[in-house]
């Protein structure tokens, strides 16, 4: 997660805020929330692919961060710590959505693809079905690595796993998607 805050504080101010946050200072927590929530929201939206859900997951992630503030190490990046919490909250949301019948179909409401790389409507539906059948752990790497084209190292950091483990998950997800798409009649 790059630091794209509109009004970045100096590193010294950041460190002071983070120390106060770790000590339970709500004003410091709000300042960190204001600085980072847009970044966290965009990261979560890439995973859950639904604006309303992303807003709720972002709020949940910051609430979890506040509850877990004692575990925050101010010598490390608040952004990276926050991104990991947000990724876990997003994964929980994907699991809930899957148990409730899935939310991937909502993506069908997004703008139509560019004409140059458009696939048929049937193909789009087959892809959404196949992605919806992946476990949340595999779906998150497919979305971040293959759709959003995030670096493997960043995905690994957010998931708290190694880059090699991310590659294994991508491999397994691609194999499952290929198998499912061919069963669903998508042409090679």
């Amino acid at each position: 997660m790059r630091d794209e805050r509109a009004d970045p504080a100096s590193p010294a101010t950041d460190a002071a805020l983070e120390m106060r946050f770790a000590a339970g200072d709500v004003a410091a927590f709000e300042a960190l929330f204001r600085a980072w929530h847009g970044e966290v929201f965009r990261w979560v939206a890439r995973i859950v692919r639904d604006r309303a859900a992303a807003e709720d997951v972002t709020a949940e992630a910051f609430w979890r961060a506040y509850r877990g503030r004692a575990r925050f190490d101010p010598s490390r990046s608040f952004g990276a710590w926050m991104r990991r919490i947000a990724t876990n909250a997003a994964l929980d949301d994907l699991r809930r959505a899957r148990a409730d019948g899935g939310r991937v179909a909502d993506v069908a409401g997004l703008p139509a693809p560019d004409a140059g790389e458009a696939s048929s409507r049937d193909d789009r539906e087959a892809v959404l079905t196949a992605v919806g059948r992946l476990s949340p752990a595999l779906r998150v790497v497919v979305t971040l690595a293959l759709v959003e084209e995030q670096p493997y190292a960043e995905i690994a950091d957010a998931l708290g796993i190694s880059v090699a483990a991310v590659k294994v998950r991508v491999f397994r997800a691609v194999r499952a998607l290929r198998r499912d798409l061919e069963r669903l009649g998508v042409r090679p």
Partner: protein
Amino acid sequence: MIDDDRLGTLLRSAMPPMNTGEPSRDLWPLVTNRPRPVIAWSRIDAGIAAAIVLAIVAMPNAWLLVAYHF
């Protein structure tokens, strides 16, 4: 077999990258008004508590042993 390029094209066509910008509302109230988790006793918790009470009633001299585990 569907190759990597075709699979990538299919995925990006069906699921365009999200360009969400900023949240549509202030999320701070959602953070501060988060419902607190309700701490409910499970059957296992109730069973352990009942077993402790029974142990103290049945073996009053063993209460120090029970207290040691807290």
